[in-house]
């Protein structure tokens, strides 16, 4: 019965989605002439958007160029173009790549993989756990709910970086430091994720749907995993991305927790390059940073599809 219900629900969502897509298209194409944006407005909008794109992309472009340069070329050559001719470019790239691999002792790609594991696993666990808790506070009455929400929200005020030392003490005391879990566990708790989950659940999970499922005799766990999670998909993408990037960029936690070279995430390796005061090879660092960002970009492109698909089911509302 529940599966039937779920499929009805799925069909409903899909239909809704198609409708919304179609309407959007129609709205774009069939606007009455009076409502079509006027040419100057259109041009102005595009100029503004392109200027903004230049602002956001220029530093990355610069980093891209910088990643092909040696330390002295970085400071004495033209910042917006390669320091060597295009024919010599592969050599320049190879040189910095060698420097990067040298710095990271050949571990670079291993570290990227580690980062993927840390970010991926903690974001998945973190998202599910946060959405479950958010759903509970949005849709159930229980004693201590107000206090729990208060404590979780209050903890957002505490600077997380300073909790790293006590967290390390705890993991160290139970002998779990220098394991993958010592990075994953702290990273999968996000008060912000909990809050988003709660808001989303409140706004987009209709009570009627839950009631209907209960009347059909579906268990709570089943309702959650077959119906609620599906409705909350776009919300989960948002939380997932947030957790993923937050874990990816965290360096203080792995710095303290991990000592084995083969467990380190890529940011820690990069931070290791920066934190030696004597470090000057910034071109190779830029290359490392850009290569390290690649998986995040791929992930974003991949998730974009889901985002679009889930939009009709409702996202953050006021």
């Amino acid at each position, binding site marked *: 019965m529940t599966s039937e219900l779920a499929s009805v629900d799925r069909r409903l969502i899909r239909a809704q989605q198609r409708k919304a897509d179609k309407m959007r298209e129609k709205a774009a194409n069939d606007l009455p002439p009076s409502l079509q944006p006027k040419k100057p407005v259109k041009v102005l909008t595009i100029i503004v958007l392109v200027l903004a794109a230049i602002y956001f992309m220029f530093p990355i472009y610069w980093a891209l160029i910088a990643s092909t340069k040696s330390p002295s070329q970085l400071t004495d050559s033209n910042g917006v173009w390669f320091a060597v001719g295009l024919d010599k470019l592969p050599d320049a790239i190879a040189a910095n790549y060698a420097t990067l691999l040298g710095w990271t002792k050949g571990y670079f790609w291993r570290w990227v993989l580690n980062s993927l594991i840390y970010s991926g696993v903690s974001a998945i666990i973190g998202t599910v756990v946060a959405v479950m*808790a958010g759903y509970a506070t949005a849709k159930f009455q229980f004693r201590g709910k107000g206090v729990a929400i208060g404590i979780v929200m209050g903890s957002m005020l505490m600077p997380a970086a300073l909790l790293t030392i006590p967290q390390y003490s705890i993991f160290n005391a139970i002998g779990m430091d220098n394991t993958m879990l010592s990075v994953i566990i702290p990273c999968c708790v996000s008060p912000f994720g909990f809050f988003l989950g709660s808001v989303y659940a409140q706004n987009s999970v209709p009570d009627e749907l839950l009631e209907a499922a209960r009347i059909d005799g579906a268990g709570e766990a089943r309702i959650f995993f077959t119906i609620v999670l599906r409705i909350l998909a776009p919300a989960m993408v948002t939380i997932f991305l947030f957790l993923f990037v937050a874990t990816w960029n965290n360096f203080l936690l792995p710095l303290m927790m991990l000592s084995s070279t083969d467990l380190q995430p890529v940011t820690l390796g990069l931070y290791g390059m920066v934190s030696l005061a004597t470090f000057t090879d910034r071109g190779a660092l830029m290359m490392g940073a850009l290569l390290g960002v690649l998986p995040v970009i791929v992930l974003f492109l991949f998730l974009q599809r889901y985002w679009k698909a889930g939009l009709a089911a409702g996202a953050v509302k006021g």
Partner: protein
Amino acid sequence: MSATTQTAVKRRGSSTKRSKAFRREERTGWAFMAPFCILFLVVFVIPIIWAIYQSFFQQVATGGGAYGGGSLENKFVGFANFQYVVTSSAFWQGIGRVLIYTVIQVPLMIIVALALAMLLDSLIVKHVSGFRLLYFLPYAIPGVVASIIWVFLYNDQISPIVKFLEMFGVHPDFFASNAVIASMANITTWTFTGYNMLIFLAALQAIPHELYEAARIDGANGWQIAWRIKLPNVRGAALLAMLLSIVGTIQLFNEPQVMQTADPSISDSFTPMMMALNTSRGSLTPKGDGPASAIAIVMALIAGLLAAAYAIVERKVNES
């Protein structure tokens, strides 16, 4: 929230089953909360309690003398660490800096993000997803690396931006004492605008299109739709983003820490977060986890006050 309560009450309708149903709901609620709560306990609650406990101690050498007896002991100092924090001019200067940041950078970033989201949602441009990716990319760059990039772009001898401006006779000094906070704010804005825009765009695109249709039939133009329908619908997301940015700003750390290499006048206590971490690391005195925890706690209290004040103001504005 009230809608939920109503349904709950409705469901509890018949009084004979009431307590049983209620107990079941309570059990289910906590069951869903449990995984998060357990993790939260380990990752937040215990460390926070530890920090509060630590804040009443200072680490001093046993035995005194020139080098001490070769070990440190935790000396209970009562509220001395807190007294140190609230009487420290360095701490309040740091708070002052992040407040300026909060007042200028946060609203600016939110407005820019909102404006970009509205433009992308305005049906004027075709390649929404392309722009969306471009704007979002800086968020994926680790904060430390972003700061390093910008430190180069601010450098008056190397930066192509400075060279470009100099062609027009402008000689910017991004590290001048009156500009350094603005330079820092720019790095934060660059990193986080795209992410905020993403959230706003998601909220905008979730607005049911029947609303637009209706408005058009009523003869509303694009601007009016933007002001009357779109803006009110992303308000919630915007206010939330604002609140989070305020809390995040109090904890400002990466940007000043990296900019310090280019500008030593950015002290180790430039922001409260830097002061806390550097106290913990030992490059400021009094040092150690005791004073560092006290700084963190006072910071958290101030952030809490700010967030509360913001919530109250927001509600007042909302009512009027």
